[in-house]
């Protein structure tokens, strides 16, 4: 490039030289900005735990005492994987996990019952319903940015208890986590 610029001397007029030099200046500036952006991007000081939070919340919903899990009244033993249908509601879920700042994780839990070879919704409950309803449409639409959220779905086979009897079912949990 320098050789070329030297050759320009005496062959072309000043205006022509400047026109050519300006293109080099732009090129150098763009390359430097790109390198800086790359360095900036590779220096990562963020810690993203968005994939773990729904796992922890799900673990708490399914395995905590005083949550939706069936507990033997006499022994106090917790039967993980068995859902107590009487406790499967918004109030119990909100009591089992709450944050001082409400814009936190929220979830919709659909309990399906098995009828023949088909599944039918038996009951639905929400964790932090207000924020679930606000953020779920944004998360479903794939909108990015701080105002939006991410959606995580978990489906597991469960058993549910209703009036002393146990039935097979399926639990579909949709977690919405604000960005």
């Amino acid at each position, binding site marked *: 490039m320098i050789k070329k610029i030297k050759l320009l001397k005496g062959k072309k007029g000043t205006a022509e030289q400047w026109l050519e030099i300006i293109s080099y200046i732009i090129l150098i500036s763009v390359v430097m900005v790109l390198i800086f952006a790359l*360095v900036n991007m590779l220096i990562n000081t963020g*810690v993203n735990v968005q994939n773990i939070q729904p796992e922890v919340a799900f673990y708490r919903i399914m395995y905590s005492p005083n949550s939706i899990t069936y507990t033997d009244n006499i022994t106090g033993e917790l039967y993980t994987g068995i859902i107590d249908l009487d406790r499967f509601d918004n109030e119990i879920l909100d009591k089992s*996990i709450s944050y001082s700042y409400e814009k936190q994780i929220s979830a919709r839990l659909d309990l399906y019952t098995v009828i023949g070879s088909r599944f039918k919704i038996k009951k639905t409950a929400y964790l932090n319903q207000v924020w679930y309803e606000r953020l779920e449409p944004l998360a479903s639409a794939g909108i990015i940015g701080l105002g939006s959220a991410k959606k995580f779905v978990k489906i597991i086979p469960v058993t549910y208890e209703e009036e002393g009897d146990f039935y097979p079912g399926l639990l579909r949990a949709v977690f919405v986590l604000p960005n």
Partner: protein
Amino acid sequence: MNSFLYFLIFAVALFGLFVYVVYNKVGAAVGDTAFARRLYARDMALLVDSMHAADGNFTIAYEMPWDFDFGLTDEKIIITEHSDKPLEKRAQTSFLFGRNEYVDVKPVWINRSIIMYTFKLKNDTIYIHVPSEDVVLPEP
């Protein structure tokens, strides 16, 4: 001076500026403890979160190799660099954990002189235990 000389001066100045900015940026990132503070705040908060699910007693040993002070409140973990400044004037990193009305969290403030301690859940109370009985842990 001709246009080539102007170009050369500009290119050298631009390159110098570029090296200076990148050097400072990388230097700040290397010396910054923000990543470690964020990591430990999240790790401890998720640990306390998980402890809420335990049916029975639960003990976990935890080590803090960094020069940080940290606090456990009833809603979050707060981490700051160790300093003599009042807490409000330090850069804080915090992370919320999910609480509930069945488990109590005993607030505590730990300074850097303690690097090994245990998180405990006993009788529906989560607290931090330090091996030495002489250490009195203040509240945040």
